């Protein structure tokens, strides 16, 4: 008895397809359309051709935001590529009490990003714990402007991202390390390879595909950084808005009753393009290496 019709697969896929169309495809298309308009939340807008993209060329804030986002990505990528791997190698060992350390390193991941960033704000402010302690111990005479100096602020946010991301990527690496052959390690050890040599010649090649995954994840999330910078700068983007990320700039233009949705959408398209670029590059590099 044949009960299956041609539309049966579509019926089964239907809810997921509708979900994708409504919540993914439609907003994405809408963003592309709005990028060529001067739309506001109320009253729509009119098509303005490439005007929003021309505005980008004269936007100082965009230059700062792009530089910040790219620096963020360039610093976070190596740190979050190798530190969690090293940590995973250390925590992979079956030692008494190792579960405690695994849990401790993972705890920042489950903590709310906003709460964590607020705690860091208290730690890093002029009268905060870090400056206070450094002054008490005689390392500093004046507090360091962690929250009011452009680059210190950016690197404070990067430190926060790295600290919070360590546990997450560590877990990914831990599962990947389980697949690295122990025999290879033993063979390398027999051949006289030390721990560092074994790390580079056995462990790293063994988790190369996972490293690619981590690279893509870190790149995308670093280019789209928002919460850390937003909370540490109290939403201002740092002194003169010069520590804004691209997402903060998009948020600045799209907020409120009279948000500039057209320009914000054009910026979103730019973000999309610069996010896709490094991802394609990484995939290409991986294919070559393979």
């Amino acid at each position, binding site marked *: 008895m044949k009960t299956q019709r*041609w*539309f049966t697969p*579509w019926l089964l896929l239907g809810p997921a397809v509708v979900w994708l*169309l409504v919540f993914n*495809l*439609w907003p994405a*298309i*809408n963003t592309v*359309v*709005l990028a060529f*308009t*001067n*739309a*506001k*939340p*109320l*009253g*729509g*807008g*009119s098509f303005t051709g490439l*005007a929003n993209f021309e*505005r980008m060329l004269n936007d100082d*804030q965009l230059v700062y935001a792009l530089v910040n986002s790219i620096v963020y990505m360039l610093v976070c990528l190596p740190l979050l590529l190798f530190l969690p791997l090293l940590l995973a190698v250390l925590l992979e060992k079956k030692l008494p009490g190792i579960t405690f350390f695994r849990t401790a390193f993972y705890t920042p991941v489950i903590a709310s990003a906003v709460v964590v960033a607020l705690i860091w*704000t208290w730690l890093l*402010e*002029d*009268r905060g714990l870090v400056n206070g302690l450094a002054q008490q111990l005689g390392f500093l005479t004046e*507090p360091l*402007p962690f*929250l*009011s100096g452009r680059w210190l*602020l950016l690197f404070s946010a990067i430190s926060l991202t790295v600290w919070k991301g360590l546990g997450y990527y560590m877990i990914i690496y831990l599962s990947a390390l389980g697949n690295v052959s122990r025999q290879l390690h033993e063979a390398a050890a027999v051949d006289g390879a030390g721990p560092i040599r074994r790390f580079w010649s056995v462990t790293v090649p063994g988790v190369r595909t996972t490293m690619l995954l981590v690279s893509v994840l870190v790149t995308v999330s670093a280019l789209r950084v928002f919460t850390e910078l937003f909370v*540490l*700068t*109290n*939403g*201002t*983007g*740092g*002194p*003169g*808005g*010069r520590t804004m990320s691209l997402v903060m700039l998009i948020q*600045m*233009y799209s*907020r*409120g*009753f*009279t*948000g*500039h*949705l*057209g*320009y914000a959408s054009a910026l979103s398209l730019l973000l999309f393009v610069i996010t896709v670029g490094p991802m394609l590059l990484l995939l290409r590099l991986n294919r070559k290496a393979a």
Partner: protein
Amino acid sequence: MRTRLVGLALSSAVLTAVAGCGLSGADTSDDQVDITGEVKGTVTLQTWALKPKFTDYMQGVIDSFEAEYPGTTVKWLDQPGDGYSEKVLSQAASNELPDVTNLPPDFALPLAKQGLLLDIDQADDKLREEYVEGAVASYEFAGQTGVFGYPWYLNTDVNFWNTELLAKYGLDETKLPTTMEEMVDQARILKEKSDGAVHLLSRKPGIEDLNQAGVELVSADGTEFIFNTPEAVAVLDLYREAFAEGLLPRNVLTDAYLGNMDLFKKEQVAWTTGGGNSITDIAVDNPSLAEKVIASPSIGTPSLYTQGLSVAKNSDNLPAAVALARWVTNTENQAAFAEVVPGIFPSTVASAEDPQFSQSDGTNVGDAKKIAFTSLAEAELLKPVIVDQAMDDFLKQQFSLAISGEITSQQALDKAVEKCNELLNN
């Protein structure tokens, strides 16, 4: 064939979505609306974060309205404090604004521009007679004819001083600064005598400070920002020099600090500004400080914060909607509201002589309240309602650069004016 059918259906859906997405038109017609008719039927009232603290008060007002106008039923919607603008925005975008909605002027402006709000000036010929001028003016917008809300409750800022810190570091509470220049002079004394542990100034200026100093912000027709004047440069330069001298905490550049009221509560700064009831709030967090605080009038033009009730132009029940908005904002109901919400003031002319507001009970709380109430006569909306979020952010950023000395005050103001005009016209 099947694949083509599915493809065609998907393409149609996408094209329909594209055609409709985000580009709907606005109803900006100036059609007269008929508000005559019997006050009866159901009418919706939307307030902003009044439940559960003020439920009894609001329910009392609603009950009295329904008793005054038999046959009416008020459906009261109270929205949470967070996300109110998004809620109103979605209601406006879907043309589902409640009949009467609590809207501050900056929320009302874009809705008025879209023709969504009733011109109260046309609907109620006693409006200008019964409500104070400044409050009514808050709901008049350049380029739009009409008044787009009944003023409800008002507030303003006064200065608060920590007398203990003033005395400890050589300042006289009877000679409080009355100009920003005097403020900077006293800030210098306080900083020197406290060895930098305490500040007097703890905030950077905003566009409100330019207005307060008498700088013309917007052209008369409301189509252009014009605040890059020598007077505005002088205001920024004053702060710039004070910052260079270390008279302000460094974190004011990013506002990444607790805010001057919080620093005041922690007794790290000796001056702050706040509403007329701020001493009561201070007492909650730092009871021993509250008794040491005194108030003085704002320096320059006092700020005016207005809340109002607007009526949806497309309401199905305009007579009842107008009657309800007027009822909630009438003298008696506003006076009663100000009693349950200390620190707010009524916007009706008849309340001007109410001793509840115009006289102090001799306490520092009473004095502050009296100063705030008397300041309202001269108070103005210091930040023009056409300044949107993006403009405000950009202004703060440029002012921050000027104060830190990275660019000159003139450069900051020129860039701010250029950007604000660009955003205004796009």
